[in-house]
Structure formats: structure tokens, C-alpha cells
């Protein structure tokens, strides 16, 4: 009798219901509150609420944790005062309590031991685990120097370990969010405007008249504020242009969907630039005032006509012209959205440059509905002694490569951890905080080699992610719902501060990262850098410096401040961009001097061989990378990923809807697990698509284990961006295996 309905009913039927136009159907919601409530319906109880900001993704929306009389976290609701979420969390934030209640959480410190010749973990006390780490770190420092300790991090906890390493004498601190994600965009925009678009992005989507998305799938990437603003823009009638080989959710809401042949985006961008310049519809006044290098650019794009681009992109010249005109009509209220995950083909800085140049030609930076100027609020740092100066840092391992990397490149830190004859700088110990490196970094072989050679690998996490299986010591961190953390100081339209405080006591033996960092620091003799007993003292001190207090913030959660600087370029003002010359660099001589093209060029990339399809990956709104695949509050919404296949391809292969297949890539790598087929008209026939973050192969993730496939295991061909070291991951091709491949074929 207990029917279990399909959770999300995905149907591919035509529209069934008929549309009725106009007319109001009579129906009312009673307002008499004196009526007796019927069975099973309780009125809202009075719960305690505690301020927090969400940690399920990097957007960090502020909200309230509601705690019941018996101490259970009942729900998490957005904070109305937070401009980052406007009182509305996304599904992951709403379901964030699943991180707290996950039965598979790390519960005690673990130390790797050898038992009867087999490696295993045993539970350890905190003292034992921390002593072990401190001892190893000291050994590493004595033998190689403190610089030989490195940190990989993602999320709020990274700060405390960065502080630890800086205090110890190392600044080898890297995050996959640079080289594996937004690095190319940040570099490309920086080279053009002298600064990048930050996070949360300074795109004025809510007031834009034309939004251009190049492979950015807002709505599937649930970057809350942007999703909200895109919805507002739809209401206001903005034109959306989406360039994507797949009919993404955003594409389905667009006036123009441009299903481009993947890897050819730069050709389209150059053609758009060509049309703007040669049809004389660019923003002349703005370009004359704020940009330099226009003549070089004009000459450069002379031959890049829409007809030229048609042969490359498969997009009709008329469509390219029309969309360019839409942008020009809307200018300067137009955004060529910089995207976020931009490490695709190895020439990604150049693609980002082309996008930045388009924004420059249209005059969007500094104008309403374009890109605005952010303003933040400075919170003073809690006093500590000056950090020692490291004898060397990650820059010294580059040997002239990746000159424009402004942040540490994960892959080069991994490289520096592989011992080789005559290597001057070697890394011997890693702390990994909040990032599942095994899934987030391609270049598996290097990564494995590096991890095998380390003297110490510490993993701090809330969950037994794959990376924990490689650690010498695993430290169980409490979730964001159980701890204080640094203040969230956001620079955006309005400067804001947000507080995170615990709603409940930490479960099991878990501890907050600030405490872990302090404990290790003190064991290393760095006590002076941790001159407090509780993070609350730090927060209160910081808040008092700016006329607030911890008590006050605990009450309000979010504090907004009035802006002191203009949001847009003021009429008549002589705005200086943050480039060396103060002008937008349409032609980047800086790049030229370093041996790169000063203006973007189109390079042809490898195309799939017969029977292979380009592997495209992306996000689903209810999941964050690989970290929510085990969250019981979210998994039912999407328990596994599916491989999207065009119906023509499905027919060719005899693939049926919901059939399970294995994927094999161009290098013969076969997916660990099989994946469901989704036959859909929403994708080109030369590509397949999967949502990133599934196919966990770590058994302790009892729910996520074996569900779906992991895209990164199939990404074995990496194109490194020579400008900043980004790892281009979209040059991989897969084919289908319909019968269960032999066991040994599994990696």
C-alpha cells in the first residue's frame, strides 16, 4: 500500500494542458484564524533561531537556523536583510541540515596504521592526532624548511589553516577554485579592466537589458543572487542570449539559444567584435574615453566576419549579426557574463579576454545594467605577530611559466610534491581542508604520485570524501551549523557583514577548524599567533573596532552599511580603471611582452573521432560539486547523474531511455560505474552531458557510493593554459559500452 512516488517526475510528453486566457476563477483563502485547526496541522511553534551563513556552496547566503524545544535543527531560512539571498536560500541551503544529520559523518580523529601488513585507520584521541601532526610538521621543517608544508583548501575553514601555514613560514596555499575553475576568467578580465568580477560577481543582472551567457548555466548553477536577479531580469523583459551546445535551463528562457559547436566560442566572440566595430555599432563615446588599443583591435578582427565564424561554429551569420545588434541596442545595459568555471580548452584566458573586450566595446563596465563597482567593509584583523618571510614560495617553482597567475596554481604545488633529482624546492606535507582533491583535480597520475611521496597528509573534513582515504591523519570537523566562524565581509552593491554562530553543540568528537588550527599552532610553538581562547573573543574584538558587538550580531545576523562610493561611473567623471594606464586594455601589450597574443585568436581544438562524443559536464541546482551527493535531504531530488544523449545518437547506438551504459574515453579509461541514459533533444549530436559530482567510489559514503559516474575520472586529457596554469578539461571524448565491461577494465 505504501506507494513510493517517483520523486521528481521527469516526463517528455508534449504539453498536455490547454491554456486558458484571462479570467479569474473564484476561490478564496479563509482568513479567520479563530477556526479550529484540523487534524495533523499544527500552528507554527516558537523556535529559537540562530544566525548563520550557508557553507553548502561559496555564495555564503546568510540565514537563520531554527531549533526546536528538544534541540533539533528543524529548518534553515534565509535572512531577509542579506542582499546575497534576500531571505531565500537555494535548495542546497534549505537542505543544509542534511550535512549535520548525515549518518556517514567523520566522527573521531583517525590515524593510518599498518595491521597484518594492511593499511587501515584506527580511532585516535584529539591529543594523539594533533601531537602526531605537530611532530611530523616539525620533522619536515627541520629537514626541508617550513616552506615544504602546503595547504589545499575550499570554503570558510581554509582561512585558519592559511594562518597556520603563514605563521609557520609557508605561503604554499592553493585552492582548486583558481586553476580548475575561475582562474582564466579572473586573469582575462584583470588583464582587460585591471580587476576581475569578484565573488559574488559584480554583474548588474537585475537591471540589465541584455544578458549574454557563454556556457554559463545560471539556474543550474544555483549561485543564488544571480539566479534571483536573472528571474527579475526576465520579469523586466531583458533579452537573454545563451551560447551552449545544450539547451540549458537558462537557454530555455532565452530569446536566442545558440547551440554552438563546442570549443569554437572564440570564433563567435571575434565575429561579434567584428560586427560591433565594422557595423559601427559599438559604444563610441565610452571606447574613446576609457579604452585604448582600439585601432589594433579593429585591424585584428578585420577578417573575422560572421561568415567566417559560421564555418567554425555552425551558427548562421544572420544569427550572429542579430545577436550583436541586440547587444548594441541594449548597451551599456548589457552583460557578456564572465562565467565562473572557465578552464575548458587551454586558451581560456584568451576567451575570457574576448568576453571582456566585448564588455569594453559595449561600455558595460561601470554602467547600470552592466558591471558595477563593488564596495566592501573592512574588518580589522585580530592582532598577531608578523608572519615570517618564507625562503621560497609557489612562484619559485614555476620556472617562468604561468606568469599571470595571481593565485597559487594547485597543479604546480602537486608537481612540487613529486621528488625528482635536483629539484630545488620540494613539498613534503599537505593539509587538505574542505576539498575532495581526488575528484576536483584532473591529472590523477601526478596527484597519486605526489600523495605517495609525502611525509604527511592531513585531511580535515566533515565527511569521509575520497581524499580522506589517502590521509595519514583524518580530522573530523564539525559542520557550519555547529560552530562560530570568521565574519563574512562581502563587497558587492552594498557592503555587508554576516555572522555564523552555532545552532547546536558539535556532534560526536568533531571540532571547528579554528580550534584545530590553534591546537596545531600551539604545539608548533606558535602560540603568539593564537592569542585568544575562543574565536568568540576574536569576533567580539573585531566587531567592537567598528562599533558593533558580538551580542548585537547574534541578534541581527546581517549588518548592512551605506555605500561611500558610486555604484556606476558618474556622468562627467574621469574614471580611471585599475590597469597600469587607467584605461581598458583592448590590446594587452602586457601579454605581448610575455610572449602571448595581445588579442585573442581562434585556435582549432581536437574534435571527437567517429563514435566518440565530447564530454561536457555541469551542475545541477540541488547539488554542490561532489559534496552533497550523500546529503539525505537532497539526494532524492537527484540520486545519480544521467548521460544526456541526442535521440539520433541514441538510435545509432540502440540506446534506450534509462538504460545503463559505461563510458570509455579517448585514452581507454572506462568509468568506474555505469550511468543511466537520458535521451533528449536538449543536446547536440556531437556531445554528451553529465552533471559533475557523482560516481563516488568511497564506500564510507554509504548513499553516494556507486551512483552515477564521475566526470573527472574520464577527464584524462588536460590542456594547460600557458598564461595562468588553468587546467582545460573539455577536450575529452567518450563512447558507450553497453555490456558490462570486464572487471579488470575498471580503474
Amino acid at each position, binding site marked *: *500500500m505504501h*506507494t*513510493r*512516488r517517483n*520523486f521528481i*517526475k521527469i*516526463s*517528455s510528453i508534449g*504539453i*498536455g*494542458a*490547454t*491554456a*486558458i*486566457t*484571462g*479570467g*479569474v*476563477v*473564484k476561490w*478564496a*483563502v*479563509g482568513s*479567520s*484564524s479563530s477556526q479550529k*485547526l*484540523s*487534524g*495533523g*496541522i499544527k*500552528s*507554527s511553534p516558537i523556535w529559537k533561531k540562530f544566525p548563520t551563513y550557508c557553507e553548502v556552496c561559496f555564495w555564503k547566503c546568510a540565514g537563520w537556523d531554527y531549533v526546536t524545544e528538544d534541540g533539533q535543527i528543524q529548518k534553515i*531560512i*534565509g535572512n531577509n536583510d542579506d542582499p546575497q539571498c534576500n*531571505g*531565500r*536560500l*537555494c*535548495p542546497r541551503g534549505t*537542505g543544509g541540515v542534511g550535512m549535520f544529520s548525515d549518518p556517514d559523518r567523520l566522527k573521531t580523529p583517525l590515524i593510518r596504521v599498518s595491521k597484518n601488513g594492511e593499511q587501515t585507520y584506527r580511532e585516535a584521541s584529539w591529543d594523539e592526532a594533533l601531537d602526531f601532526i605537530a611532530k611530523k610538521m616539525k620533522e619536515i621543517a627541520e629537514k626541508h624548511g617550513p616552506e615544504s608544508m602546503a595547504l589545499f583548501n575550499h570554503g570558510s575553514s581554509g582561512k585558519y589553516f592559511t594562518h597556520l601555514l603563514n605563521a609557520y613560514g609557508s605561503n604554499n596555499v592553493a585552492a582548486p577554485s583558481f586553476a580548475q575553475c575561475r582562474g582564466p576568467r579572473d586573469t582575462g578580465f584583470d588583464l582587460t579592466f585591471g580587476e576581475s568580477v569578484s565573488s559574488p560577481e559584480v554583474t548588474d543582472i537585475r537591471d540589465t537589458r541584455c544578458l549574454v551567457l557563454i556556457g554559463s548555466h545560471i*539556474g*543550474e548553477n544555483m549561485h543564488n543572487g544571480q*539566479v*534571483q536577479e536573472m*528571474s527579475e531580469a*526576465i*520579469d523586466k523583459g531583458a533579452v537573454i542570449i545563451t551560447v551552449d551546445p545544450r*539547451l540549458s*535551463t537558462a537557454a*530555455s528562457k532565452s530569446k536566442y539559444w545558440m547551440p554552438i559547436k563546442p570549443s569554437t566560442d572564440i570564433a563567435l566572440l571575434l565575429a561579434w567584435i567584428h560586427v560591433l566595430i565594422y557595423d559601427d555599432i559599438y559604444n563610441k563615446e565610452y571606447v574613446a574615453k576609457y579604452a585604448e588599443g582600439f585601432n589594433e583591435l579593429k585591424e585584428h578582427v578585420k577578417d573575422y566576419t560572421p561568415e567566417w565564424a559560421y564555418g567554425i561554429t555552425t551558427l548562421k551569420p544572420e544569427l550572429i549579426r542579430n545577436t550583436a545588434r541586440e547587444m548594441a541596442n541594449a548597451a551599456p545595459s548589457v552583460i557578456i557574463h564572465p562565467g565562473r568555471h572557465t578552464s575548458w580548452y587551454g586558451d581560456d584566458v584568451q576567451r575570457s579576454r574576448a568576453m571582456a573586450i566585448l564588455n569594453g566595446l559595449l561600455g558595460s563596465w561601470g554602467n547600470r545594467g552592466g558591471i558595477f563597482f563593488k564596495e566592501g567593509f573592512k574588518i580589522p584583523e585580530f592582532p598577531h605577530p608578523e608572519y615570517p618571510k618564507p625562503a621560497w614560495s609557489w612562484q619559485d617553482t614555476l620556472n617562468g611559466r604561468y606568469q599571470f597567475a595571481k593565485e597559487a596554481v594547485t597543479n604546480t604545488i602537486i608537481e612540487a610534491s613529486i621528488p625528482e633529482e635536483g629539484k630545488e624546492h620540494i613539498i613534503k606535507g599537505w593539509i587538505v581542508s574542505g576539498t575532495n582533491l581526488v575528484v576536483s583535480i584532473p591529472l590523477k597520475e601526478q596527484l597519486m604520485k605526489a600523495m605517495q611521496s609525502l611525509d604527511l597528509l592531513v585531511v580535515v573534513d566533515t565527511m569521509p570524501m575520497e581524499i580522506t582515504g589517502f590521509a595519514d591523519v583524518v580530522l573530523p570537523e564539525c559542520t557550519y551549523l555547529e560552530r562560530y566562524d570568521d565574519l563574512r565581509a562581502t563587497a558587492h552593491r552594498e557592503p555587508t557583514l554576516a555572522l555564523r554562530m552555532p545552532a547546536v553543540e558539535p556532534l560526536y568528537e568533531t571540532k571547528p577548524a579554528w580550534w584545530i588550527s590553534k591546537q596545531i599552532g600551539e604545539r608548533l610553538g606558535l602560540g603568539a599567533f593564537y592569542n585568544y581562547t575562543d574565536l568568540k573573543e576574536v569576533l567580539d574584538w573585531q566587531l567592537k573596532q567598528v562599533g558593533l558587538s558580538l551580542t548585537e550580531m547574534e541578534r541581527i545576523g546581517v549588518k548592512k552599511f551605506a555605500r561611500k562610493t558610486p555604484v556606476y561611473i558618474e556622468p562627467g567623471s574621469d574614471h580611471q580603471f585599475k590597469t597600469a594606464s587607467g584605461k581598458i586594455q583592448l590590446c594587452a601589450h602586457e601579454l605581448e611582452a610575455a610572449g602571448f597574443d595581445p588579442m585573442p585568436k581562434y585556435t582549432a581544438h581536437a574534435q571527437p573521432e567517429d563514435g566518440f562524443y565530447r564530454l561536457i559536464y555541469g551542475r545541477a541546482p*540541488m547539488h554542490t560539486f561532489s559534496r552533497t551527493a550523500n546529503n539525505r*535531504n537532497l539526494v*532524492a*531530488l537527484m540520486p545519480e547523474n544521467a548521460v544526456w544523449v*541526442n*535521440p539520433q545518437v541514441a538510435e545509432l547506438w540502440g540506446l534506450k531511455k534509462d538504460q545503463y551504459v559505461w563510458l570509455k574515453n579517448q585514452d581507454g579509461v572506462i568509468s568506474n560505474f555505469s550511468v543511466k541514459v537520458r535521451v533528449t*533533444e*536538449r543536446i*547536440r*549530436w556531437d556531445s554528451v552531458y553529465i552533471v559533475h559530482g557523482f560516481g563516488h567510489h568511497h564506500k564510507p559514503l554509504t548513499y553516494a557510493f556507486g551512483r552515477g559516474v564521475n566526470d573527472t575520472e574520464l577527464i584524462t586529457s588536460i590542456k594547460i593554459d600557458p598564461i595562468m596554469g588553468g587546467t582545460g578539461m573539455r577536450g575529452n571524448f567518450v563512447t558507450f559500452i553497453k555490456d558490462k565491461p570486464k572487471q579488470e577494465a575498471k580503474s
Partner: protein
Amino acid sequence: MAIDTRKCVGCSDCVVACQTENNVPVGFCRDWVVEVVDGTYPNVSIELRSERCNHCDNSPCVRCCPTGASHFEDGGIVLVEHNKCIGCGACIEACPYDARYSHPDGYVDKCTFCIHRVREGKNPACVSVCPTRCMHFGDLDDPNSEIVNILKNRKFKSLAPEAGTKPQIFYLV
């Protein structure tokens, strides 16, 4: 309730919010998201919409309930009184929208339009959480309400009108 399919991104926040607001057991739901794909590549369109009990004016579930547990509450909201419900499932069969499920505790459960919140003057949980603000809830009898205004000015449809149930959720198209 009116739901704007032009704005919904199918994120399912409405589903998660309903679950935490109403203690819906894991694995069940009172609302869900549907994606309808139309056309062939490259002329494809999709509609995303959040569905739930339609609180029909002419509701087959209320009609067929042998115990009177399924009933109309003030304002026309269709509710199930858990204490009276014997879990026979007749209403589950009768509902053309598949909006009801058997709660593990032995009764039938479904969307209540968050009547406990509505009575406090709040929006239903799903409406109040939706990041795209694509859902609107209000009094259809009040000519000045936001929802009446929206329905006056926008094209809309309802689901399975041929079933004759007079559904009270309108999808803006």
C-alpha cells in the same frame, strides 16, 4: 496559487522547503517539479513547473473518502484529517494529479497549502523560499490582490482541465 513557468528554473527548493516545514518523511514529497520537453533539436523548448495538490473546487478525493477525513477547510483548502484517515488509499486512486501519498504512519498526506502559515498571514513555505519568486499565493476573492492582478494580465493554464476537477493552481505561460 499561480506559478510562473517562464521564471521557474526547476531547482526544487520548493520541494526541500516543504519537507523541512512540514516534516515530510525522507523519500516522500508533497510537491515536485516537472520538466516537459517539446520539439526537436534545435527547435526545442522546455517548461519547468512545480506541482502539488490543486485544491480542486470539484475534488474527487473528497467525494470518494469513506470516512470524511478528506474535506474542505475554510477558504476551499482540501485537507486530510489524519486522525480520521484509515489509510484506505481511495483518494490516492481518485486524484488525477497523483498529489497524495501514504505516510509511513498509516494515513494519507498531501499539500495543505501550509494552512498553518497562511493563518498567520505568511506565505506557504514553498512560495516564500522560491529563489526566482515565480510562485504567487493569495486571495482570489479579493479583486485587489496581487494574484488576481497577475491572472488578469497574464496567460495561464491549469493541469488536466479535462478531468473536470476545477483545479486552483494556475500556471502562467
